[in-house]
Every structure is written in structure tokens, then in C-alpha cells.
């Protein structure tokens, strides 16, 4: 007897398309990173593959995102059953220390858009049956970040996308319930963006300032 009911916010057909993976974990060998990159770039020429630190990153245009992700899940060779992780990184417009570092240390050049701020959303797709994983990166303008939601392909993205919305303000089109998840509902701003300050209160250990005991404390004074 099974108690499993359809997951809210997803069409029942999603489950039907998923390959059954109850026994296939050890059975099939993993694809090499080159093979994965080739398989996807042949199908989607616009995708740019990049390898670093033994990991594969595929840079995908937001318009193609859904198609690529669906392909990765449904393709028999790739068969990525699991969306391991979904996270955001904010690259604000402006100068970065990265330029100086690159010139002085000779480390590999690192992609960063400085004319326009970008929120980069990273998807880690994993195949449990074949035991490989890779990263898909999709960037969106940080002034009005907007990406298609992958909850229809991977229901697990539900919480992840809410988190990225909460922390970076990325609006995911097609998400069933895009609300804040970790911050209070009435919070203003998206705290993990680089233009959002760390917050907290100053603790002055200098000069003659000190924090008075609680009953004498004026909160505004401490913050100032």
C-alpha cells in the first residue's frame, strides 16, 4: 500500500517521465566531463562549456534553460534524476579586486561581468544511476532578475528557488508559490546580494565607548 500523493505544484506527468532508478545505481558507468559537454553542446550549440577544478560548468542562456534542463533529465545518456543544488551568486556592476589578482598571481582568468550586474544561478545536476554531476549556470540582470522556474522539471527546486528569491530577488516564472522562505515575510531587501550590508551592530572596542548594560541601553544609540 502506498501513501504517495502527487507533489503540489507539479503536473502528474512529471513523475511518469522520470526514469525508474531503483536498481540502476551501480549498473551504469559515468560519462566523462568531455562526453557530457559534447552531448549537450551538440544538441544546444549556444551552450558554452567550461572545465575548471575537475568540474564542468555549462553556461546557458535563460531562454534555453528549461529546454536544456529537461534534456539533461530525459536523455538516456545523461539521465540526471537529481537536482542536487541550486544556488545564487551576485556579481554587482563595478570594479573587482579580481583584475589585480589575475595580473599578479597568474591564476586563470575568471569570468565576471562588470558593465552590468549579474545574478548567476547555479544548478548542480546529478545522475544517481550513472554517477556523474555537472553545473549549469544561468545569469540574469541584477536590476530585475528573472529566470524560468525549473520546478516543473525538478519539483525539488521549489524550496531552492524560494531561497534564491529570498536572498537575491530572482523572480522565477512559473514557480507555484514564490514567497520568502527563510527571512520574515515583511523583510525589505534581499540579504545575500552584495549591495546589501552585512548588518548587525557596531561593537566599539575603541576610545571610551562601551556598550552599557541592558537596562541602561538605548538601542538606537548602540546602532549609531
Amino acid at each position, binding site marked *: 500500500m502506498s501513501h504517495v500523493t502527487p507533489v503540489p505544484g507539479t503536473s502528474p506527468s512529471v513523475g511518469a517521465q522520470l526514469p525508474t532508478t531503483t536498481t540502476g545505481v551501480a549498473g551504469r558507468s559515468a560519462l566523462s566531463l568531455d562526453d557530457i559537454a559534447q552531448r549537450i553542446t551538440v544538441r544546444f550549440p549556444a551552450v558554452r562549456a567550461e572545465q575548471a577544478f575537475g568540474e564542468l560548468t555549462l553556461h546557458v542562456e535563460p531562454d534555453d534553460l528549461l529546454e536544456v534542463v529537461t534534456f539533461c533529465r530525459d536523455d538516456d545518456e545523461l539521465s540526471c534524476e537529481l537536482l542536487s543544488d541550486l544556488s545564487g551568486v551576485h556579481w554587482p556592476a563595478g570594479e573587482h579586486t579580481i583584475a589585480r589578482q589575475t595580473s599578479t598571481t597568474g591564476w586563470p582568468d575568471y569570468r565576471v561581468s562588470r558593465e552590468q550586474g549579474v545574478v548567476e544561478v547555479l544548478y548542480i545536476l546529478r545522475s544517481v544511476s550513472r554517477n556523474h554531476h555537472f553545473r549549469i549556470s544561468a545569469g540574469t540582470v541584477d536590476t530585475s532578475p528573472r529566470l524560468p522556474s525549473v520546478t516543473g522539471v525538478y519539483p525539488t527546486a521549489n524550496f531552492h528557488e524560494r531561497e534564491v528569491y529570498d536572498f537575491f530577488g530572482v523572480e522565477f516564472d512559473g514557480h507555484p508559490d514564490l514567497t520568502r522562505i*527563510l*527571512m*520574515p515575510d515583511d*523583510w525589505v531587501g534581499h*540579504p545575500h546580494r552584495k549591495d*546589501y*550590508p*552585512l*548588518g*548587525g*551592530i557596531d*561593537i566599539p572596542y575603541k576610545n571610551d565607548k562601551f556598550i552599557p548594560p*541592558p537596562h541602561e*541601553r538605548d*538601542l538606537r544609540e548602540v546602532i549609531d
Partner: protein
Amino acid sequence: MGLEEKLPSGILLTNVERIVNYTRANSLWPATFGLACCAIEMMASGGPRHDMARFGMEVFRASPRQADLMIVAGRVSNKMAPVLRRIYDQMSDPKWVLSMGVCATSGGMFNNYALVQGVDHVVPVDMYVPGCPPRPEMLLDGILKLHEKIKHETFAEQGARA
């Protein structure tokens, strides 16, 4: 000298304040208010090795209405602060608050947007226990010191605080 000399044996003189405080201090019931890491150490204090039952307070009450002591065990986020205050308000007087660990006391190492920098912004605190997390022994020491404090409080002080 006074009345004491004329008392027969077996009679003890005290005042109401002291006897009431004595009973209050020795059956202090904490509310289960575990937040983070410190909550695990708080549970360990109730566990077999440290055994809080020795001090008459192994009964962690799930309902704030039945508790006298709120052990704020862990970091208090801005989202949790209103809930914490409501639980404090639901506790019946007299009530005491023990701030366990450095996060509850001052925000600690997490001096950022998410946390209330010290639970004393939200509720009045009677005893601070330092440490990250405090050992169960430190919590027990803090509780024993709180017992002493309760025993020497006057009703007026308790009323003023409530």
C-alpha cells in the same frame, strides 16, 4: 532577647517572602525552548550524566503556561523574536529568563542582519551563561546561581520586573 528565645523546639521563624522564594527556587520548571546548538547541550543537561533532576527541574514543560523559567538556548533570529516574546508573555508570573550561550546573550559571532543582537532586546534576562555552547556544567552553574538570586529577591522586585 526576643521572641526566638521563647520558642519551643521544632519551631522555625521566617517570613513569607523567604519561604515562598525557597519553594519557588527549588521547583523551577523550565519551558522547552530549544533554538540551536545550545538546545542540544540543554538536553544533555537533562540526560543521564548531568542529570538536572538533582535540582528538581527535570520536568521541561512543553506549555509555557506551566513553566517558570525560559532557557533561551541558542541564537534568536528576527523571525523568531516575536514568537519568543509571545511565549514569554504566555508564561505565568513569576517568571525568569536565562540566556544560554553567547548568541542569545549578545548575538555572539553572528553579528549580522539575521539575528537579534542579544535576547535582552526582547525579554528581560535574569542570568547570562557564556560559552559557545556552554557545557552542561556551566548551564547547571547558571541555574544554581539563578536559584540563589530567586531566594533573595523581594516580592516588590519580582512585581516590578513582571
